[in-house]
């Protein structure tokens, strides 16, 4: 099986989708001739022509708004926002339009678009290249929200997202593009070519939306994570020696509550981790669901380990990032509670 980085897997997903379906179009800032600042769309314009893959003006509102119009026409736009930090100018189009079009028109018009965007920190990108805005989308009825954590899933989930009949926010943890980063920023990262999840089929396949995956089975405590934090959680489990079960949520909306509840009922303890700021983060929803569904099984409060409630700093990046040390401490605390 071929080995792919996450960038290659994402590119392959678009390539496969464009090859199978003429209605799939790809555009965004710098994605056409140049192939994207992270090179996710490299070669697609050459292969499919300028009508299928093209550069857009620097207007996130325009990119999403135009994509909605195209989708209502019958196309399936898969668009790129250069960094998740720049999605806010398009927020109205996403929340008021893409998410509600099917509902308000009673299905006359629909909005099968995928909005890809690199998310998360760990690259010294400061306030405007590091954010994790997933909770701002999980509150919006009508959207789906996906966060892959490895090349195999990235490709399968992206194809599934492109084929999905509804709008999907597809968040790509940029710190994982080249390897499974575990939060130890002072150690070299393994390349995906050395990782089994870097083995990705060449052709078409999907990973269904709405299904979580247990990355590390365990019996002592459940860790709910997604994106980069999956590896941080695994590292924390190894380092503390705590037999944690690490669940990679993969899709945040709709959420695989079943897998979560089954695990927590088994382990009776739960830690939730994400890079985004704490207050009103997606972790709050996870904690709520766990305590609603597993109240009588829980032996300790569900803990949250997250970014702090400040803008994302530049120099203090590694004090901000919820690394294996902080996650490990929460695991210990939760076990001792």
């Amino acid at each position: 099986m071929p080995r792919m980085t996450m960038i290659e897997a994402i590119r392959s997903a678009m390539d496969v989708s464009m090859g199978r379906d003429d209605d799939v179009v790809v555009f965004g800032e710098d994605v056409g001739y140049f192939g994207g600042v992270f090179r996710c769309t490299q070669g697609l314009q050459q292969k499919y022509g300028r009508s299928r893959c093209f550069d857009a003006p620097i207007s996130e509102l325009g990119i999403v708004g135009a994509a909605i119009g195209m989708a209502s026409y019958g196309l399936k736009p898969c668009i790129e926002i250069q960094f998740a930090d720049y999605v806010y100018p398009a927020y109205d189009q996403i929340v008021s339009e893409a998410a509600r079009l099917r509902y308000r028109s009673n299905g006359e018009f629909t909005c099968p678009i995928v909005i890809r965007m690199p998310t998360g920190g760990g690259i010294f990108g400061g306030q405007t290249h590091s954010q994790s805005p997933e909770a701002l989308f999980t509150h919006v009825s009508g959207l789906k929200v996906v966060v892959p954590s490895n090349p195999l899933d990235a490709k399968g989930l992206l194809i599934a997202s492109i084929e999905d009949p509804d709008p999907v926010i597809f968040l790509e943890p940029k710190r994982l593009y080249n390897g499974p980063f575990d939060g130890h920023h002072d150690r070299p990262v393994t390349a995906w070519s050395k990782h089994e999840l870097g083995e990705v089929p060449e052709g078409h396949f999907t990973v269904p939306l709405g299904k979580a995956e247990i990355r590390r089975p365990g019996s002592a405590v459940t860790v709910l994570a997604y994106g980069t934090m999956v590896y941080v959680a695994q590292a924390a489990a190894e380092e503390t020696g705590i037999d944690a079960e690490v669940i990679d949520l993969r899709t945040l909306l709709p959420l695989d509550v079943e897998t979560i509840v089954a695990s927590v009922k088994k382990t009776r303890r739960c830690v939730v981790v994400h890079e985004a700021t704490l207050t009103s983060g997606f972790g709050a929803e996870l904690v709520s669901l766990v305590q609603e569904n597993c109240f009588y099984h829980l032996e300790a409060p569900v803990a949250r380990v997250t970014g702090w409630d400040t803008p994302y700093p530049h120099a203090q990046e590694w004090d901000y990032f919820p690394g294996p040390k902080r996650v490990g401490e929460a695991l210990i605390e939760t076990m001792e509670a």
Partner: protein
Amino acid sequence: MTDNPAPLKFHVPEPEVRPGGTPDFSNVPIPKAGSVDRPPVDVDPRTIRDLAYSIIRVLNREGDAVGPWAGTLTDEEQLEGLRHMMTLRTFDARMQMAQRQGKTSFYMQHMGEEAVSCAFRKALVQGDMNFPTYRQAGLLIAGGYPMVDMMNQIYSNEMDPLKGRQLPIMYSAKDHGFFSISGNLTTQYIQAVGWAMASAIKGDTKIAVGWVGDGATAESDFHAALVFASTYRAPVVLNVVNNQWAISTFQGIARGGSGTFAARGLGFGIPALRVDGNDYLAVHAVAKWAAERARSNLGPTLVEYVTYRVGAHSTSDDPSAYRPKTESDAWPLGDPVIRLKNHLIRRGLWSDERHKQTEAEILEAVISAQKEAESHGTLHAGGKPSTRDMFEGVYAEMPPHLRRQRQKAGV
């Protein structure tokens, strides 16, 4: 001279007249009907910038159709146009009343602006798509969409095509080239451009039409639409309906120092035309010109319709608080229904008698549609969409969490 500069002063535009004052439009330059050139559709946009500052008019004071923009409609079509406008006006009156009677929550009428959407619709063909605001129901009336379906939507009754989910008048009618209306202003302007881009990407022949009010041009989506339309030469007509007022703010608040809204197009190299929005014939001629440009792969056109909102903004509004009560009487472009009627009478195609008779017929048709609609319920009485409907259609397939919620709601 900037060594000791005078204090700066803050400028807020104000309309000439406020309640209590005497309406005065004498400062609004109205070119004579027939006086504006009609360039070929493949004209170099740089050579027609002056069209953004004039007003294309066909019907003159005497009721004659004059000048190079005249002659785009047959007699039949003109008679039909009159009927459409009369129908829209009657429809509005009845629905306005129904709202007052508590049969629905909200209504917005077109009084004075009927020509714009009714005439524009006749320049399109099946397959084209409008992205309308709430004040273009003439697109439906003139396109033959059943009035009773409109009313069912307004009443949110059991036959409401939108299942009670949407505010009254936020219609959706795909087969009639009418995109689902959003309550958020201007969002659909850029969507129209995207739809048009899609048509070009697919090598189709369909064109899109964006609609926005004078006030709503200030929204950001307006800019995105012009940027994308200009860059990709999208086959789209971008309409600005300048009815002089947003809610309580006059057009100067949105327009600033530009003189006209059409001028906005110039900064993008987009041909920009202004047209007498109360002149059915002129609206149609300009619409046809712009649609032809789009369909001939010549790209976007921006059209400003100069008209006047005679009624209140909506049933929640009382304009006497911010403008003279008689302002609409002073409006120099007259009433679109009367102007077309007079033209047809002058040409011997119509008479006061037939007009009255047609009015009565239309009223009857509207009332009969209304009766039918009301037999399916009104907002607070009779048949209504189900609570189940509320949970459907958020996604193509209902996800588990929503299924659980529906269960919890006991439906």
